[in-house]
């Protein structure tokens, strides 16, 4: 099995860290193969930035994603750049205050990650919330692996805070899924 996840946003949002947590969780926590590619521009802040994470049970050769299973968008421009390569049955996860997806896009999951982070008092933790959200919505990594990796990846002393943020995102995801299930069951059973 192979999952290809693109996370995209601005420099300064912690996009690469989010990718690294996912990749790390998959590789070390879940003992699978995982390749993370980061791409960014010359800007330290505000430039386009993305992380491409491939998670697989077999060796990964070509490290770029040309067709993604999951797109996580934390900026409108990132969304616009990467949405064309999202598979038809792929999932779009996005920060609902920063990205306005096209009306017709299917399989989309919104989370107010930045707003939630601001509520937690740390705008910087939007990415951790997003990781929680990804974990529950996509299940590309196990909860345990993701939690452990978050704890290991953040600066010492901030573990609790970050795990809380992670939990918030995770739970938000669960409830979104429930909501969708309801919706879906009201529709035809397909997400």
């Amino acid at each position, binding site marked *: 099995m192979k999952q290809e996840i693109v996370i995209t946003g*601005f420099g300064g949002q912690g996009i690469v860290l989010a990718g690294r947590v996912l990749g790390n969780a998959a590789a070390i926590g879940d003992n699978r193969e995982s390749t993370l590619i980061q791409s960014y521009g010359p800007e330290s802040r*505000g430039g386009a930035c993305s992380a491409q994470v491939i998670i697989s049970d077999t060796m990964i050769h070509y490290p770029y994603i040309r067709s993604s299973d999951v797109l996580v968008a934390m900026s409108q421009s990132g969304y616009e750049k990467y949405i064309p390569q999202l598979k038809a049955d792929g999932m779009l996860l996005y920060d609902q*205050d*920063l990205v306005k997806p096209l009306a017709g896009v299917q399989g989309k999951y919104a989370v107010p990650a*930045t707003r939630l982070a601001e509520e937690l008092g740390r705008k910087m933790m939007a990415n951790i919330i997003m990781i929680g959200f990804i974990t529950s919505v996509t299940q590309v990594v196990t909860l345990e692996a993701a939690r452990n990796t978050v704890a290991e990846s953040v600066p010492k002393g901030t573990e609790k805070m970050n795990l809380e943020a992670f939990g918030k995102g995770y739970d938000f995801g669960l409830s979104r899924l429930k909501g969708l299930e309801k919706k879906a069951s009201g529709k035809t059973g397909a997400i």
Partner: protein
Amino acid sequence: MDYWRVPLDAAEIEVTKGIVHILDERCKGCGYCIEYCPKKILKFSSAFNKKGYHPPILTGTSDCVNCHYCEIICPEFAIYSVEA
């Protein structure tokens, strides 16, 4: 905190009245203009601009004295004043 060189510029400051212009989309919300406006007439808007920053708006409490300090301290060419 007060404008750090009030005594020096104070005289001039009183001379004219100004209108301040804010180019929202250029602003990155550093707050320098807000912090160092001698008249304290600027504050962060609650809204975001496209890049997700909160540009300054006028508090409306007092008048701009066209001292240009916001203009010259702004790293973004996002604010300037002209004579009223």
